[in-house]
């Protein structure tokens, strides 16, 4: 009887929460597909690509949480990644701590880095903030080269313990963490805190006028984003088994931005989609190595030309529509809202959000 009861609960959850919107159905089958994949295909190269995609998906989503939601444009997101990567690597190599301890400690170190950047940068806005954040990973790289005895200098820290004993285990660790942390970030964005993040981006003065301490919330955004990016940095270092200067490179920071903007910012799932499309695409384009980067750039430019708000946002807006009264999302072809039964057809004909 309890089994039957829980089965009924799952069925109810699926029909009420998942199978009501196309975007949720896609997300559900995407997650299901990822979980089932190693049972069907054991190709280590394919698993490697998905593992790296999962790691970078957490990284890109964490950029979205900070820069997309609160509008604090961070051009040096690799700092969090690099700090956690080096911390995890050094702790593992010097103290012999296992990955399940080094990764969270690395993420906490990234939080500290987030606070260190956040505090002086709070006075800055727009391009000034972007340029200031860009400088931090470069400064840290200078420090890395100054103390090669600890950081390994140009070589980085190598000889680190692998993330898991087998590729499949590493796959499940990364994929499940990506799903879990993605959900947590999405929930944060959808929570009361997330609404304040949105409001800070739109009109910080108005938020302050409402009696909200925006400084505290911006610092919270830096810390949270640093934590999630730190987890990805720790996972990366244990998977690749080296933490080197490449984890702090400017190109890594910009990659996060490209992935996020391609997928669609202020969504969390947008950057995740961006990584899961673009990272394997780059691998696929190895068949034509000479024009690989050029083709990649062309694809990104063309997509953004026709879908300036990002791929997922564009697709979502064609499949779903927001109810003008209760703000709940509905399938685009519904005539009445699934919650408040407001007339959705009328809104479109009057020239609603997408009708203009």
């Amino acid at each position, binding site marked *: 009887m309890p089994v039957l009861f829980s089965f009924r609960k799952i069925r109810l959850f699926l029909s009420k929460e998942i199978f009501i919107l196309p975007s949720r159905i896609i997300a559900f089958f995407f997650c299901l597909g990822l979980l089932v994949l190693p049972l069907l295909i054991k190709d*280590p*190269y394919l698993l490697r*690509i998905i593992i790296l995609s999962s790691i970078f998906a957490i990284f890109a989503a964490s950029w979205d949480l900070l820069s997309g939601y609160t509008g604090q444009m961070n051009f040096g997101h690799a700092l969090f990644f690099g700090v956690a990567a080096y911390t995890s690597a050094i702790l593992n190599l010097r103290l012999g701590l296992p990955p399940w301890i080094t990764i969270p400690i690395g993420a906490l170190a990234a939080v500290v880095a987030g606070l260190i950047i956040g505090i002086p940068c709070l006075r800055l806005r727009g391009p000034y903030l972007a340029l200031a954040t860009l400088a931090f990973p470069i400064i840290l790289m200078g420090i890395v080269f100054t103390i090669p005895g600890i950081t390994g200098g140009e070589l980085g820290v190598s000889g680190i313990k692998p993330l898991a004993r087998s590729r499949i285990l590493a796959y499940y660790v990364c994929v499940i963490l990506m799903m879990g942390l993605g959900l947590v970030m999405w929930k944060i964005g959808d929570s009361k805190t997330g609404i304040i993040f949105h409001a800070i981006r739109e009109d910080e003065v108005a938020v302050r006028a409402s009696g909200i301490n925006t400084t505290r919330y911006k610092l919270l955004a830096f810390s949270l984003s640093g934590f999630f990016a730190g987890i990805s940095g720790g996972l990366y270092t244990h998977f*690749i088994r080296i933490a080197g200067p490449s984890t702090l490179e400017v190109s890594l920071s910009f990659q996060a931005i490209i992935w996020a903007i391609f997928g669609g910012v202020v969504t969390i799932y947008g950057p995740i989609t961006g990584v899961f499309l673009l990272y394997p695409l780059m691998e696929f384009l190895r068949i034509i*190595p000479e024009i690989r980067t050029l083709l990649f750039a062309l694809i990104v430019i063309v997509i953004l030309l026709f879908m300036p708000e990002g791929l997922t946002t564009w697709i979502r807006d064609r499949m779903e529509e927001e109810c003008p009264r209760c703000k709940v999302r509905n399938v685009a072809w519904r005539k009445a809202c699934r919650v408040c039964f407001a007339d959705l057809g009328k809104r479109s004909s009057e020239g609603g959000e997408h009708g203009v």
Partner: protein
Amino acid sequence: MRGWGRIFGSVIVLLFIFFGSISIAQDIKIGVAGPMAFIQGQHHWFGAEYAVEEINARGGVLVGGKRLPIKLIKIDTNEILNVPDAASAVERAITRDKVDFLVGGFRTEAVFAMQDVAMDYKKIFMGCGAAHPELCARVAKDYNKYKYWFRVTPINSMFLAKVDFILLGMVGKIMGMELGIPKPKVAIFAEKAVWADPIVAAAKENIPKMGMEIAGEWRPSATATDVTAELSAINASGAHIIFTTISGPMGIPYAKKWGELKIPAASVGINVEAQKKGFWEATGGLGNYDTTMNTYARVEITSVTIPFYDKFTAKAGEFPTYNAGTNDAIRILVNAIEKAGTLDADKLVPELERTDFYGAAGRIVFTKDHDVTWGPNFVTATGTQWQDGKLMCVWPVNWEGITYKGAVKYKIPPWVVEKWKKK
């Protein structure tokens, strides 16, 4: 009838593909890993191609009484720009392209990651690009895991630095003998880059010990387009020698200005631009007498060096750099395969450890850490000087009893002679 014809044609095509794939499976696949969009990767590839064309022309590799051709697989690691890309590229080559062996690698950080992947799959990886000692120290630390790694080129970075100072000492000695300068003053001229820092530190420590004096230290940007100010300051310092450490494009404006201003100090050390064929044209001949450390030179390091040097230059349109060591690496591998009569990596490792091979870079013998042995009668590296439009080998000449046939005497630039002879 036309329909039957099509079916028949399709069957023929399928059979052709099927048997074709069987014949492909009979190849020995060697993955050439390098940043193929850059000169380093291109030299990896050309070096490997040169070796494979010759080996396949004589019928391939003799394995257990059967001759198997070698098929090269190009692995664009993109390692200069992206480290995880390099590790993924190598894993793809191993799992998808089913490469049997790997050669190449360039950026040390990326080579570490690629080395780990190759070792996980127990694939023999012949390094031809990264000089750091740690890559071979791993063999000593964990032999069972890293025994499949061997470094062919370049020589260990510790020895690279040693050769650099030997060249400086040689120029100092010649200036002392020919110009009567008992204690030459040396200007340290190194690009502002991390890799140059330990060389600058070592220079500060070693130059006084070598019986020379430090005139000063100049660190322009690796991408500087004009170094007139630095060279004028060096001129004012009264330096007799400029000890260069340059890998970036600044090597061209440096040499051009040095020749144009006729700075009365001999230029010696590392200038990567001066290793390239286009250096003479790029400097309009003003880079004459610039001296740089090199791996290859058009001299008889061994009997195969000059043919390799000439054919490589004709094929690539460039003088070979140490990345072209893939040529020697593949030949060493083939020798080991033919002696062991197998492609089994575990059986090949002891055979590779016994290597004593006369390649284009010199006599290659591996140390117990699987590093290429440096020293007289082994691989030495070379010192090359531009002399009237030709890149000539000027070292080793009478060094530890070694003089490569075709090597010439180092020439002090005439304006340097003119300036210091008067005094």
